[in-house]
């Protein structure tokens, strides 16, 4: 299945901003984080199609998946 993966802040360094990735059916949000060699401890927010999700959320064909480090502002 194809999923669009988006990275933010320093997660982009030596990786990418946005990429369409071919993933096996049943891939979870956490598995993509691991595959990108991102430390789960550094992950602040995961969003799937503009809604928050968790490491064990299973991705679906056509999903837009965003991975953010711990960030804040205001």
């Amino acid at each position: 299945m194809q999923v669009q993966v988006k990275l933010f802040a320093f997660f982009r360094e030596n990786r990418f901003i946005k990429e369409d990735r071919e993933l096996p059916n049943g891939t979870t949000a956490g598995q993509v984080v691991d595959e990108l060699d991102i430390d789960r401890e550094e992950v602040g927010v995961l969003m799937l199609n503009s809604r928050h999700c968790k490491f064990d959320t299973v991705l679906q064909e056509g999903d837009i998946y965003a991975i953010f480090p711990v960030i804040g502002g205001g």
Partner: protein
Amino acid sequence: MADKIFRVNMTDLSTSIEDVPADWAGHGGRGLTSNIVAAEVPPSCHPLGPNNKLIFAPGLLSGTAASNSGRISAGAKSPLTGTIKESNSGGTSAQRLAKIGCKALIIEGQPKDDSWYSLLLTPEGVTISKEEELVGKGNFAVVETVEKRFSDKIGILSIGQGGEMLMTAANISVKDPDSHVRSLGRGGLGAVMGSKKIKFIALDAQDGKVAIADMDAFRAANKIFTKALVDHPVSQALGTYGSNVLVNIINEAGGLPTKNFSAGQFEGHEQISGETMHDIIVERGGKPTHGCHAGCVIKCSQIYNDLKGNYKTSGMEYESIWAMGADCTVDNLDQIAEMDHIMDDIGIDTIETAVAFGVAMEGGVLEFGDSEEMIRILTEEIAKGTALGRVIGNGAGSVGRTYGVTRVPVVKNQAIPAYDPRAIKGIGITYATSTQGADHTMGYTIATEILGVGGTADPLSKEGMVELSRGLQIATAAIDSTGMCLFIAFAALDDGTCLPALIDMLNARFGINLTAEDVTNLGMSILKTEHAFNTAAGFTNLDDRLPEFFATEPVAPHNAVWDFSGEEIDTFWNF
């Protein structure tokens, strides 16, 4: 030296130094300005008349070595909202005031003639002088000239043309350590200063120092506190990308108000994002990391250079960039930086003014995305006080009324900032119930709803949002009294050592024994004092509501509407 109240009467041009009344002794920053306004300002007074008072107060820890303690509060009855107002800012003034021994500066009355004045504060007292040279000038000229008259160490609070012309978007500028300016931004306090005919206030601390009751305990607590701040990952991201790191995540969540709040995502988000801004700054030899006051360890500010590598502006916040950017559909950071610089010079709030531009675009005054026309209006209309300039310089509500626009994002006539309350519902409770009109900083539910700091909450659900906003508004009122930057809250929400260390510092500074419960009670008492002032000024629960369009116009991508009932909102005050 015991801290004193410095009082200036602009009607008879007299000054006095008074002992601090027992009721005010435990207060600083917002707690103090709000208590003084509540005690001395008639709630029904005209905000620009002689009976309003303008109060400045450093926080309880300002002027000490406590990290991030350099925030100053300004208070008055707001000419924008008609409510009580506390606006706070970094810069060097809080530290100067504290070292002068000034717990609060109260400015009352109003000159009977058309003369302009300046104030000079030293540990000995206040001198009032007539001012002619700087009348009609912007803040950068004021800072440059006042530094030449005194020294570059002088603290400066000043107004630009916006404040002189009593525009309700006018702010008060606060000189920062690099002689640029920060802003006491919201609520039109620059107009109150203008109504007192004060162009600037110079703060000369000489060799004044802040007394600490127990220095060893203070140092030990500050070490723990500082470590909690420095170690928190949010602090680290703020130092790299600034608060503008939020553009992309709020856009992703569908809560980035776009094109005058008609959509929740902006096509040009990447061009105005913190990541892009960071790269531009580095490429042009600016500074991505910069503190707005000495002692800040988070350093969310930045120095942004223009295409030629020359200084353009600093301290661009997410909310300012959002307002000029997504809300007006401008996707060019250089244009945004130019406008930020101009608004700092004129002395007008970037949020209020840019949201007013968004409403003006809706009303057909100019096209969405036309940043060249925005720049022209800023310099040729607002700075010069033309009729159009005054309509926009009086804020989003003013523009909506003038041009018959119904989609006007204000609460209590103050512009709603950078988070759509339909897609991020908790912040809508803060906008509705804040004692000061729409203001995200009053109870920053975004931390929990979007950022996952201090727990999590579903931003599209109403569940628990009143309680979340209430808890944060109480905590914020207390933090705003300490002189601490609100960005300590991220560490405070996640790191159990942070708040106890802050309380230990307060105790060591004053030789007292505050508990965490005392601090919560302080926050509750401040909110109730502010609410009581508003009630006496004629506000009711029906003013704690969002504009109608939020309930009737679904916002993409979630097609969410604002669905809190009035009764649900009103439970906020059940404490």
